[in-house]
C-alpha cells in the first residue's frame, strides 16, 4: 500500500470512561522513565506508563518476568489511578497543568495510548507532548482549573460512566453536564478533517520543498 492510500481516521469526538491523574508539571520522565526506552519499537510500552508511580521495583529486569515479557502483576502495585481496578477500561485521561513537560520522547504518549488512552483533558499541556499526541490522533483539550478539577472529582465518583470529548464542538460532556473546552485550531482541523498524519500531505509538495531548499544560501543538495 502506498502512502497516499493510507487511511487516516477522522477524530471528531472521543468517548469513554475517565481516569484522573492529578498534579501539575507531570513530566515525561514520570510518564515513562528513560530506562524503558531502550527499545527499537513502541510495542508493549503501555505496561510502563507511570511505572515508578505504580511499582516499587527499580529496574526493567526486576519489573519483568525475567524473560523480557510482561510485567509481573504481583509487582508491588502502589496507589496510582493506573493501578486502580475501577479505571482499567478508561480511555479519557483528566490531568492538571503543564502535563507532559520535559523530554520530546514520543514514547510518553505511545505508552499512554497503548495503555488505553484515546483523549486527554487538562489545564495545559507542554508543546512537544501535545504535538506528539496529535501525531497519534489523540486530542489534548484544555479547560480552566475549576472545570478540570470538577471533572476529576466526577470521574472519581463515576468511574464507569462515559465522558464525551467533542473535538469539533469543543465541548466535554459528562453526566448531565456539558462544558466548553479549548482545542487548538490546527489540532481541531487536523483531527476533524482526518489530516493529522502529515507525512503524505507534505510529501505531495515535494517540488515546492526542493525549490525552497535551493533558494537557501546554506543548503547544498546532492541531486
Amino acid at each position, binding site marked *: 500500500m502506498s502512502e497516499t492510500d493510507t487511511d487516516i481516521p477522522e477524530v471528531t469526538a472521543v468517548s469513554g470512561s475517565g481516569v484522573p491523574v492529578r498534579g501539575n508539571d507531570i513530566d515525561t520522565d514520570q510518564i515513562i522513565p528513560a530506562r524503558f526506552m531502550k527499545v527499537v519499537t513502541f510495542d508493549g510500552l503501555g505496561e510502563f506508563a507511570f511505572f515508578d508511580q505504580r511499582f516499587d521495583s527499580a529496574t526493567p529486569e526486576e519489573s519483568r518476568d525475567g524473560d523480557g515479557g510482561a510485567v509481573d502483576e504481583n509487582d508491588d502495585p502502589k496507589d496510582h489511578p493506573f493501578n486502580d481496578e475501577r479505571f482499567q477500561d478508561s480511555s479519557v485521561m483528566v490531568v492538571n497543568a503543564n502535563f507532559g513537560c520535559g523530554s520530546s520522547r514520543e514514547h510518553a504518549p505511545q505508552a499512554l495510548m497503548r495503555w488505553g488512552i484515546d483523549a486527554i483533558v487538562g489545564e495545559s499541556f507542554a508543546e512537544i507532548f501535545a*504535538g506528539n499526541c496529535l501525531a497519534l490522533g489523540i486530542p489534548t483539550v484544555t479547560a480552566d482549573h475549576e472545570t478540570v478539577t470538577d471533572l476529576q472529582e466526577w470521574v472519581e465518583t463515576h468511574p464507569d460512566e462515559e465522558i464525551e470529548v467533542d473535538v469539533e464542538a469543543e465541548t466535554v460532556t459528562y453526566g448531565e453536564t456539558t462544558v466548553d473546552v479549548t482545542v487548538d485550531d490546527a489540532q481541531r482541523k487536523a483531527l476533524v478533517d482526518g489530516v493529522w498524519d502529515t507525512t503524505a500531505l507534505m510529501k505531495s509538495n515535494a517540488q515546492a520543498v526542493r525549490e525552497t531548499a535551493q533558494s537557501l544560501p546554506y543548503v547544498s543538495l546532492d541531486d
Partner: protein
Amino acid sequence: MSEGTLYDKVWDEHAVTELPTGQTQLFVGLHLIHEVTSPQAFGMLRERDMEVAYPELTHATVDHIVPTADQSRPYADDAAEEMMSELERNVRDAGIQFSDPTSGDQGIVHVIGPEQGLTQPGTTIVCGDSHTSTHGAFGALAFGIGTSQIRDVLATGCVAMEKQKVRKIEVTGELGDGVEAKDVILEIIRRLGTDGGVGYVYEYAGEAVENLDMEGRMSICNMSIEGGARAGYVNPDETTYEWLKETDAFADDPEKFERLKPYWESVRSDEDAEYDDVVTIDGSELEPVVTWGTTPGQGVGVTEPIPTPEDLPADKRETARQAQEHMRVEPGETMEGYEIDVAFLGSCTNARLADLRRAARLVKGREVHPDVRALVVPGSQRVQSAAEADGLDEIFEAAGFEWRNAGCSMCLGMNDDQLEGDEASASSSNRNFVGRQGSKDGRTVLMNPRMVAAAAINGEVTDVREMKEVTVA
C-alpha cells in the same frame, strides 16, 4: 504578532506552503538523529515503503545509551547494543553521515553539531530531542520533535508547525564573579515558570548574554525547553562567527564563510523589531542558582532561603510540598550545606571544553570529598581529546574524579551511570525530575559546573564564590 525578529525571518525563509490544517510546512535545513528516538521512525518509513528524502542534510550520532566506561563492542548491555546496531543499519541503508565512536567525532548531539559547524545561523534544525533548542545559540531556529515528526522529516525534509510568539528576554548588566550562563537560565525559569514559555520562542539578548562565549549561550538556549519554550536563540554576532571560522565547515573554506556571512547578518533581529513580550532581568544582581526541588523552576540563590510552599502562588504549593519532601529540604534554610553523594559534570548543558576548563581551575590541587562519587563525562570525543591535550583529565583524576568517555550518561541514566537508592547528586545537567538520574528515590540538585566541582570537593552544596581557584593551561 512579532515582526522583524530573527524568528520571523528564518521562518519566512523556510516556509514551503500552508497546510490544510493552517500549519506551515517548514523546510528543515539540518536533521540530527540519535539512537533513542529515530529507530521507530525508520520503521514507519519502511512500513510505508518510503525513502529518506534528504540524507545529505541528515547527521547521526550515538549518545544516550553509549557506555562511558567500557565501549568495546558488542556493548555489555544487550538493549544498548541492539539500539546501536539498528542505528548503524539505518544510517548505512539511507546513506546518512554518522559520527560514530570510531570516528573520533562522536558525542552528545547538541555538542557535535556546533563543534563540526553543522549548526549555523539562519538555519532550521530539528532533532528528536527536546534540548535541540541548544543550537539556537548560533541564531538558528532549532527545536525538538517527536518520533512521528522524525518520520515526517525523514520522508519529506519538512515539519508541520504553527508559528509561535516571540518573547525577548533582556539580561542587562555584568554577571558577578562565580555567576555563569547556567545561573542566568535557572533564574529565568524560576521567574517565568516551567510553562511560561509555552507558545513562545525565547530571544535572549542584553549585555550579559552578548558578553557570553558560545558555550555559555548554548547553556542558556539548551534549557529553553525547561521554561516551556520549544526554541530559544541569540542573534549571531562576531563571537558566533569566530566560533564558526574554526569549525570543519569553514576552516578550509574561507570563501564559503564570506559567502554566507551576509545571510547570517541579514537574519539578525532588526533594531526596531516587534516582540509579543519583553522581559528584563538585571544580570548584575544574580548569584549562583541551585535547585531545591524537582522541577528546574524550583531554584534559589545559593545564599537565599528555600521558599515556604504557603508563600508561593496557589498552583505551585502542592508541587513544592511534594518536592521538598522528596528532596528532604526545609523551607527557610539555604541549599548551602546540603550533603551530596554524587557529583556529575556532564550533559548537553554543560560538558563543553570551556565548562570543563572552568571546573578544572577550581579542582586543581584539591581532593574530592571521601564520601562523594564524582565523574566527568565530556560532551564529545573532541571535547575529551582537547581536554586531555590540556591535561584536564590529569587534574580531575588526581582530585579523585572519574574521567569518562563522551555521552549523555547520568543526565538521564540510560546507560550504567545512574544514581542508586536515595543518593543526592550535584549535577551540571538540565533536569531534576524525580527519577531522572536513574533512581526513583534519587535527588538531583542542578547547578553550574564550577558549583558541581565545589560540591564534589566539600561533599555538600557550596557557594563557589568562597573558594579560590588556580590557573591551569
